[in-house]
Structure formats: structure tokens, C-alpha cells
């Protein structure tokens, strides 16, 4: 098959699946699910085939759309290292999530709609990843946001889900405004929408003609606003923990390969441009390190498994952006890839526990016997070890590359921050693992949400009267597949392949054993602390955070950032909206009403001269006509 056919099939299959499933089979749940899975399978095969058979130079496969003012617009696919990698990651994760959803959403009344929306999500993300020009990129960037909105608010009868969906949509939109301005300015400067061309323009040594250094900094800053929104970087990160209101498979998709990865991918896509803006890169680096730090601390106090994973997503996204901002395209994208695998895996295991026990609380899951679900717990180990950065697991290698890229003069403070975040990551990950697999009913761990309390919205039929609890086969298979990925995807063999694919073979940083001592020691320190707090037989299972109640409160309230937004920005916006509402109802509407009343009064007063008798009307008309024509005739 030619690359063009493969690309078209990859891009169109999810769209067709979405359309057919939503329009014709929304009520026929199993048919809709089958169609969505078929579409996902086509995309998976197509994207992986394209990845394994890359052309020597970037390929452009487009169909013309329209031409205006000498600018040709086309839809299609740009096939180069970055898009091929991203496409395959999206294809693989979506496929796993689709299969998993067969089990997880088995009895949901909106199953057909759910699978259709997953198709929409995959289509949007693939089309965004493969976008050959800014316009297609922007359209599908927004469609990714729309699909997230629909899926986060999937259980729309839950007010909290609706609020979370709106929050995600609006928060990301704040960033998108800046990004849109940035894209328009960028187009004004380089006069092309072609992404490959833009990359080449900025890749050339020195700054492009007619573009000043300050201008590039501005462009980079505006584009980064979009990244900030989508990839949940401080201060636009608050939507992401709330996005947990969606079904768990959605979280798995949203937090690994699609929504949040779109921001990082945008950064990577315009990496040449960002490299020309050194000041902005330092600011971005600071933001990313800060984000990684605060979100890791939040994860240390959370009891909700999905919330812990959400905070870890924010901090891992911070790590990806650290890698990119430190100048290494490979580091950022490699971590994006490994993170997609292990984070999707962790969410799927979380979903399996929640499905079984009807609670998100890790203490409750542990006490209800979470470790008896053997495959799921295996997935928890593989994903958790990868997230924490335990050697030979995927996350270890990619994080190592990021930390390696961060070396250099002036980067010491960022490096310390990144190590601190890595330490906390190991700590909270193992806190989660220990609380689930080593439950201790005598410990001081507090159950915030007892098992079974969420049975309402989850699917709740368990046909296992005997034996250990067990997730359905459709849920176990993706967990196994992703577990393998979480174990091996980081190995140097894959790292070298990805670096070669991205055209950055020199960035595949092979650290000497001595250089690895520090990162490994830091991870082990985090694990050891977690063992003392949660793992050992006499461990209090309360954690160091609980020694400082004000700190624990602050962490549980996410450093009061949400509260701060509510008290300041949201209050201000609401007051402004109330003012505008007054101006609208009393000002504009009042003026309109007054005009209407005046017109009616005038009508009533002039109506008195109307007799309503036709002969008089006609007579008047004839008389006037006669006078007018006579006066004309007489000059």
C-alpha cells in the first residue's frame, strides 16, 4: 500500500466510525462499539505501518481545499518523524482504551454515544498530529478540546461532570486565545501556513528575515499559552484534576496520548521556533519545573486514585516540557511516548479497581482486597514503577534523558527542582502502591470514601461469587499489552530508534553508570521514605505530610489555587457579567421597550384620523393624485 492510501485510511477510519456509530447505531450499543473498534483498528494498523516504513524525507500527502490570495489551503497529512511517532502512540493507546471500554462501559446506557465520541476524539487527535498546515492544526486542536468536553461531561446528569467539562473547555480556551493571536502573527511574519516550511525557516541559522528577536520571543510566548492550556501547566492547570469526572477510560485517553499530549506536541512541532527564543525558553523552563513541583506535592496528600494520577500527569507533562525547553526535542517526545504508555496503563488499572470496588479511595481499595486482582495489580506495578522511574522501566530512561538534557550552565536551579519533583514522584507513586497492595486495617490511614459508594455510576454487575475478584477479559488484555509497553518501551534500543526517527540521533543520551547513580539514588530515597510511611508492618500509613496539618490542608485544597481563582478572577468575571446583564436588561432592553411604547402611542394618536371606511381612503388618494398631477401639468 502506498503511504498516501495508508494515511488517508488512518485519518478517515475514526471519522467514519464516529459518524456511522453516532448517526445510525447510537442505540444499538454493541454495533456502535464494534464499528468504533474497527475504525480504531484501521487507524492503529495504518499509523504503525507508516511508522515502521518511514520515507527518507518528510512526505506531504494533501488534497487541495481552497485557494485565497495566493495561499493554498489543503487537508492531509505531513509524514515526518514527529507526526509518525505521535500518530502511532495515539493509534495504540486509543485501541487499548476502546477494547477496555467494552468491559468498563458494558452496561452504561450511553455506551453507543461513548464509542462514537471516542472515534471523534481519535480522529481529531490524529488529524491534529498529522496536520501539514496551521489551519488544519488549529481546527483539529479545537476539535480535540471539543471531544474532551463531550467525554469529560459524558455523564451529563451529574452536575459535577458538567461543571468539570465546562471548566476544561474554558480553561483551555483561555490559552487558545493567546495561541490564535500567535498563529496569526506568525503567519504575518513568514507568509506561509505550511508547518514544514515554517520549521525550515526557523531551523536556518540566525533569525528569519524581517523577524526581530523580540518578535520571536513574543510568538513563542503566545504559542506557549496554548500549550499551557492544553497540557495543563501552571497557572492554567486547574482543569485537569477535575477532568476526572469523566469515565475512567476517557481519563486514560485524555491523560496519555490525546488532549494533554496535544500541547506538548505543539511545542515539539514548533520546536525550531522556540529554540530561536532563548529568553522565553528559560521562562517556560521555570514554569514547567514549578508545575512539576506543585503538582507532585498535591499528589502526596490525595487519596483519590484518579486524582493522584491526574496530579502525576500534570507533573509528568511538566517533565516533557522541561525536556523540550532544555533544547532536546528527543527528550520531550520520548517521555511523551513512554508516559502515554504507562499513564494509560495506570488509569486502566485504576478503572479496573473502581469498576470492582466502586470507590476511588486507595485506602478503601486496599482494604477491600485490591491486590487479589492479580492482572490489575501487575499493571499497577508495571505502570507505577515506570512512573516512579525505577531503573529499566520505561519512565526511568525517558526521565534520565530529560535530566541529561538539563545539564549546563545556569540550569542548576532547574535541575534541583526536577530532582525534587522526581523524588516526590517516587514517593507518591509508592504511597499509592503500598496503600493498595499492603493494606493495614490497624493503621491510621483514613478512608475518605468507603468501598461501594460509587456503585451508582460505574457498571456494577459482578458475576463472581467464588474466587478472587477479577476484571473482565476485555479489561485485562489492554492492561497486559500496556504493561509490556511500560516495561520495555524505554530501553535504549527504542530510545535510539525514536531519536533516529526524529532526526536527532545525537540527543539519545547514553549516560555512564556513574551519571546514573544520582537519579537512581533519588528514586530509591523516595521509595524508601514511602516504605517507612506506608509499606512496613508498623508503618503509620499517614505520611510525612500529615505531620504538618496546615500543609496537608493546603495540599488537599491544591494549594488553594482554585479557591484563589474563585475569589479573584471568577468573582471579577461574574461581577462584570452581572454589570453587563444589567446594562443589557435595563439599558438596551429598556431603550427598546421605550421605543416600542413611543411608537404605539404615536400610532394610537394618529389612528384617530382613520375612519376605516374604504371610500374615504380611495377618495383621498384620488384627490391627492389629482392635485399633484394638476400642479405638475400647470407647471
Amino acid at each position, binding site marked *: 500500500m502506498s503511504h498516501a492510501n495508508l494515511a488517508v485510511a488512518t485519518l478517515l477510519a475514526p471519522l467514519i466510525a464516529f459518524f456511522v456509530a453516532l448517526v445510525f447505531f447510537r442505540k444499538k450499543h454493541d454495533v456502535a462499539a464494534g464499528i468504533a473498534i474497527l475504525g480504531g483498528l484501521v487507524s492503529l494498523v495504518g499509523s504503525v505501518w507508516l511508522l515502521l516504513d518511514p520515507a527518507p524525507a518528510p512526505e506531504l500527502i494533501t488534497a487541495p481545499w481552497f485557494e485565497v490570495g495566493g495561499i493554498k489551503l489543503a487537508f492531509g497529512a505531513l509524514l515526518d518523524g514527529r507526526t509518525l511517532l505521535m500518530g502511532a502512540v495515539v493509534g495504540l493507546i486509543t485501541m487499548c482504551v476502546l477494547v477496555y471500554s467494552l468491559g468498563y462501559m458494558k452496561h452504561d446506557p450511553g455506551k453507543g454515544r461513548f464509542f462514537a465520541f471516542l472515534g471523534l476524539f481519535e480522529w481529531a487527535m490524529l488529524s491534529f498530529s498529522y496536520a501539514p498546515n496551521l489551519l488544519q492544526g488549529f481546527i483539529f486542536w479545537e476539535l480535540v478540546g471539543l471531544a474532551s468536553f463531550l467525554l469529560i461531561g459524558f455523564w451529563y446528569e451529574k452536575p459535577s461532570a458538567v461543571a468539570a467539562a465546562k471548566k476544561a473547555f474554558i480553561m483551555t480556551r483561555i490559552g487558545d486565545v493567546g495561541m490564535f493571536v500567535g498563529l496569526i502573527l506568525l503567519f504575518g511574519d513568514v507568509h506561509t501556513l505550511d508547518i514544514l516550511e515554517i520549521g525550515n525557516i526557523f531551523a536556518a541559522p540566525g533569525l528569519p528575515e524581517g523577524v526581530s528577536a523580540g518578535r520571536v520571543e513574543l510568538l513563542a510566548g503566545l504559542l506557549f499559552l496554548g500549550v499551557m492550556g492544553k497540557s495543563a501547566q501552571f497557572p492554567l492547570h486547574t482543569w485537569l484534576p477535575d477532568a476526572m469526572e469523566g469515565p475512567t477510560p476517557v481519563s486514560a485517553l485524555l491523560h496519555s496520548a490525546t488532549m494533554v499530549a496535544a500541547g506538548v506536541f505543539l511545542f515539539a512541532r514548533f520546536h525550531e521556533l522556540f529554540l530561536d527564543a532563548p529568553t522565553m525558553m528559560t521562562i517556560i523552563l521555570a514554569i514547567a519545573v514549578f508545575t512539576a513541583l506543585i503538582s507532585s506535592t498535591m499528589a502526596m496528600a490525595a487519596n483519590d486514585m484518579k486524582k493522584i494520577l491526574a496530579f502525576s500527569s500534570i507533573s509528568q507533562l511538566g517533565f516533557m516540557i522541561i525536556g523540550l525547553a532544555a533544547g532536546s526535542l528527543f527528550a520531550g517526545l520520548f517521555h511523551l511516548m513512554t508516559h502515554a504508555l504507562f499513564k494509560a496503563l495506570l488509569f486502566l488499572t485504576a478503572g479496573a479497581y473502581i469498576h470492582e470496588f466502586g470507590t476511588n479511595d486507595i485506602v478503601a481499595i486496599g482494604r477491600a482486597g485490591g491486590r487479589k486482582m492479580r492482572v490489575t495489580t501487575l499493571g499497577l506495578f508495571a505502570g507505577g514503577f515506570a512512573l516512579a522511574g525505577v531503573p529499566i522501566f520505561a519512565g526511568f530512561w525517558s526521565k534520565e534523558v530529560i535530566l541529561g538534557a538539563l545539564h549546563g550552565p545556569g540550569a542548576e536551579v532547574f535541575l534541583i527542582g526536577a530532582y525534587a519533583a522526581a523524588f516526590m514522584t517516587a514517593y507518591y507513586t509508592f504511597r499509592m502502591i503500598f496503600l493498595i497492595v499492603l493494606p493495614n486495617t490497624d493503621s491510621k490511614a483514613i478512608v475518605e470514601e468507603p468501598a461501594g459508594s460509587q456503585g451508582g455510576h460505574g457498571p456494577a454487575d459482578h458475576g463472581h461469587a467464588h474466587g478472587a475478584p477479577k476484571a473482565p477479559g476485555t479489561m485485562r488484555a489492554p492492561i497486559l499489552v500496556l504493561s509490556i509497553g511500560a516495561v520495555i518501551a524505554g530501553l535504549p534500543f527504542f530510545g535510539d530508534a525514536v531519536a533516529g526517527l526524529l532526526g536527532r540521533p545525537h540527543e539519545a543520551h547514553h549516560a555512564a553508570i556513574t551519571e546514573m547513580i544520582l537519579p537512581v539514588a533519588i528514586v530509591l530515597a523516595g521509595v524508601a521514605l514511602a516504605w517507612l510511611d506506608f509499606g512496613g508492618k508498623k508503618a503509620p500509613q499517614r505520611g510525612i505530610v500529615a505531620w504538618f496539618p496546615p500543609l496537608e490542608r493546603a495540599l488537599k485544597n491544591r494549594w488553594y489555587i482554585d479557591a484563589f481563582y474563585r475569589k479573584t478572577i471568577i468573582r471579577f468575571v461574574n461581577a462584570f457579567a452581572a454589570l453587563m446583564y444589567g446594562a443589557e436588561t435595563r439599558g438596551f432592553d429598556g431603550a427598546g421597550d421605550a421605543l416600542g411604547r413611543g411608537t404605539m402611542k404615536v400610532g394610537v394618536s*394618529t389612528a*384617530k384620523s*382613520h375612519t*376605516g*371606511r374604504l*371610500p374615504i381612503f*380611495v377618495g383621498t388618494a*384620488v384627490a391627492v393624485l389629482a392635485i399633484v398631477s394638476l400642479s405638475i401639468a400647470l407647471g
Partner: protein
Amino acid sequence: MNLESFVLLSLVLFTLGLYAVMARRNLIAILIGIELMLNAASLNFMAFNRFLPVEDPTVGQLFVLFIIGLAAAEVAIALSIILVVYRERKRIDVDDITELKG
């Protein structure tokens, strides 16, 4: 035959029509009056077209064709209005229809 006789005939027709519109109370009669006035106008057009030296004789004929078409459309609408009035009140006397009175 000369121009004057045609114009005279047209004048008579027009006056009759005007009288019908102003004096009659029956809606159908008023409609007939309007038709008479339209025909008077058409006759005038054709007469001037025929007897006066005009640059392009088709202009007058075109006018007349348009008037005929317009009259047909007008009759269709007027008759349907009259029908509705009749259904509402069982009468078609113009004196009954005075809702627009102030």
C-alpha cells in the same frame, strides 16, 4: 377612428371604475371597478402607442402585457381575501371592514 375617440373611451372606463370603487359597497363590485381602471390605462397605452410617433412601439405593448399580468395576480389575491372575509362574516360589505379605524 382617431386618437381622441380612444382616449375618450378610456376616460369613460376609468371614471366608471373610479365610481365603482368609491360608491359601491360590495367588494366584488369594487374589484370590478379596479379592473376597469386598469383596462382604461391599458387602452390609453395602446392608443398613444398606435397614433403618436414613438421611437419603439414595443415599449407600450410591454407595459400593457405587464398590466394584464399584474391584474391577473391582483384578482387572484383580492378574490381570496374576499373569500376569507365572506367566510368570517357571511357578508362582503365594505362598511363592515373597519378594523383599522383609530
